């Protein structure tokens, strides 16, 4: 099993519902976030392009954060989900420095926190909170090993990219373009 997410930049309106849904679902303190929206404008008026992307941890197959964690707090869970065990984390911040996507933050309670793909929801058969709430339904989630999963289907049919592929981390967050 290999969990992955694809975000359709053609549909995302950048509303940040994914951000606030994650914050409330996961009790992320105000002022911090596990996911965020990036806006990129290209061109000059009136020949313009705009890309909106909901970003989060890429749950990489080859995660520098897991490799550099001195305590084993950062580890792979079922389906390749990268998780931080809070009570094993000493808050050293090596993982924050190693992540090319800036996907981790230091929680005020002294540990490092990040997106979990809402593993607690996946275990109950629910989609991640961001995917479940997105008004534009621009996020696709599922198991890449299952060719019928929404994410497999959409990646098969649509042009897509990953972010900073040159970092060699084998990210599992895809953007449909």
């Amino acid at each position, binding site marked *: 099993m290999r969990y992955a997410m694809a975000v359709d930049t053609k549909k995302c309106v950048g509303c940040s519902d994914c951000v606030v849904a994650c914050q*409330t679902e996961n009790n992320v303190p105000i002022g911090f976030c596990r996911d965020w929206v990036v806006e990129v404008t290209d061109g000059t*008026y009136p020949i313009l392009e*705009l890309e909106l992307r909901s970003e989060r941890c890429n749950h990489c197959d080859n995660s520098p954060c897991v490799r550099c964690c001195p305590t084993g707090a950062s580890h792979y869970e079922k389906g390749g989900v990268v998780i931080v065990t809070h009570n094993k984390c000493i808050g050293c911040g090596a993982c924050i420095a190693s992540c090319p996507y800036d996907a981790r933050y230091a929680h005020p309670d002294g540990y490092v926190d990040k997106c979990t793909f809402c593993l607690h929801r996946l275990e109950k058969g629910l989609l991640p909170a961001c995917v*479940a709430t997105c*008004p534009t*339904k621009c996020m696709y989630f599922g198991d890449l090993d299952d060719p019928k999963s929404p994410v497999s289907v959409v990646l098969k049919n649509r042009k897509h990219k990953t972010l900073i592929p040159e970092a060699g981390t084998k990210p599992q967050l895809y953007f449909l373009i």
Partner: protein
Amino acid sequence: MSNRRDFIRISALGAGGLAVGIPAFKSWAGGLIDPERMVYDGMRRTPTYCEICFWKCAGWVYKNDQGDIWKITGNTEDQHSNGRLCPRGTGGVGMYTDENRLKTPLIRTTIGGKQTYREASWDEALDYIASKLKGVIAASGPESVALFSHGSGGKYFGSLLKSFGSNTNAAPSYAQCKGPREAAFLATFGEVVESPERIDIRDTRCLVLIGSHLGENMHNGQVQEMSDAIDKGATIITVDPRFSTAASKSKFWLPIKPSTDLALLLAWMNVIMGEGLYDKAYVEKYTSGFDKLQAHVKPFTPEWAYGITTIAPEMIRETARAMAHAAPAVIVHPGRHVTWYGDDVQRLRAVAILNALLGSWGRRGGFYRPESITVPEFPHPHYPAVKKGWRDLLGDKYPLADQPVANAIVDLSRPSEAGPAKYKAWIVNGTNLVETMPNQANTLEAIKALDLLVVIDTMPMEITGYADVVLPECTYLERYDDIRVSPHRKPHFALRMPAVKPKYNSKPAWWMAKQLAEKMGLGAFFPWKDIEEYLGWQLKQMGSSLEEMQRIGVKTSERPADDLYFAPDEDVEFSTNSKKIELYSSDLEGAGFAALPFYTPHEEPPAGFYRLIYGRAPMHTFTRTSNNPNLADLMDENSVWIHPKVAKEWALTNEQYIYLKNQDGVLSDFRIKVRVTERIRWDSVFMVHGFGHNQKKLERCFGRGASDTQMITKVLVDPSMGGTGMRGNFVTFVTDNGGAKS
């Protein structure tokens, strides 16, 4: 009396002030909730519908083990949200947790020559209002009391007004927002567009947005359906001087010169009629006035429009053909906030006519026939006859207005040469009138002349600072309100119930209105014990029950007939004078206005000034959400969008703070951040509405960003229905403080 109503910052209270928590009132009727019934997924959940915007999506409020609100999600049975709330709905919990909320009733008083508020008990505050209202009614008649409302609680205060004979229940959502659209569609099709709009975006093949920035205005169901339309490969055409989010999703973006939309609409008609692209059978069967329209639009060629709109003739032709190619599954979107230039009814008439030519009204992928349910009135004595209503007070002004015109009521609250003020008391619920109405100076003058101003709100918004009495309403998460019924594809209704008890000493509007009625001797008009009895009775008549609705939140029924769209060759009688779709409007002609839309050039910015275009951000609603901790975390100030060439000329850089000054010399109270971006035309600037609060008690948003309303001192009023056009204002940049107040 003249300086009696100095603006009081609510923070300037005496010791103890608002911070004192007072136990929730004991008669709170929330005890009927059976915790067992609410268990879901190990959590308690209760139904609600959102109050952060008018879309009123139905959802679920979940609580954690401590009984605090944990999260809010959509109700999948709800056609407004389809189970997916927007960021504001998801962040609605912040309306409840905001520590700056109004906490107890306040009465204006003078201590040592200085005006301030003192805390009052509910009894005292309501006695004060009841006695003042009775005095105003005795002296000036019941018609001198006006309600301004943009919230669910307005229903109960509206009933209070009816019980003593006033019908002035004004919503700024008419003349400051969608009024011109409703008047134009009423004149053309004999029906209004409604809210939510009856547009079938889900199944459209071509969506035309004129200044409508869907995706930034988070009209949830529409944003969702626009996404569906993108998936299905629909053509989107966006007309906007700004490269909006919607423009970036569009096949065609027409970067129009602001204020010239009517010229484009006429040129589109010219092409569609000239090339024979209109739906001939539909036009023949359903419309009247075709010949007059055809002769009228003949001169308005794309070449004529080019010099006005700056849109190339070939682009005008190509987009007109794209619409016709998709017809009748095409929507020329009627917009929502359409009070722009004072000829807005004419512009919206052009939109309505274009839809009629394309045959989209009543057709799949165009405009569907909405269906809704009527909530029966709880039995009460007949309301007294309205001897003098808002229409009588308005006289022959704004003949097309079929709802109270908020700005006209403000004007009639000021004494004039014609005589004393006609309105003496205002009740304001859930609308921050000072920031909602353009021309703030005018609003403040009117407020000064009032005998009584009562403000009911959850937050210390600017308007509360001018009140004689402030009543703290509990948030939508802590109260019942009326059953939500709204027109949609299928009839459905939704329940809002309290998830938690009201914080502080706040109370629901139904309770306040009922108490006031009783204190004024009008209790017979509120003949129910409490809201649960009232809702329970209504729901029973509707084939449900309070218990069932507490469990399911939303109930849907099938349409009585299979008539979402016109059947082929259906004979349709339209509610217009001619019983046809009126391309040539007999209503407008009869009222002395142009029966066919025409283009009027509008004033252009003088040298060194830029047209002020304002709009929305997806995570905020007006000024209502700026202090919400969850939503302020997403966006805590607005910025002014400036084209790079303009920025270069003014030596402005990104992130730099500047002040704005308008054509009348009004300087913004606060500074605003510059955003240098290619996404805006060089002759305009753009800013998000709802920032620049000057109420210190709103600690999170005080002084953050600038207020567009403050810059809107020139109001272009539509003579036909009173809409306040607000796009005729121009601003320039002030890089030093320039004498600003902060």
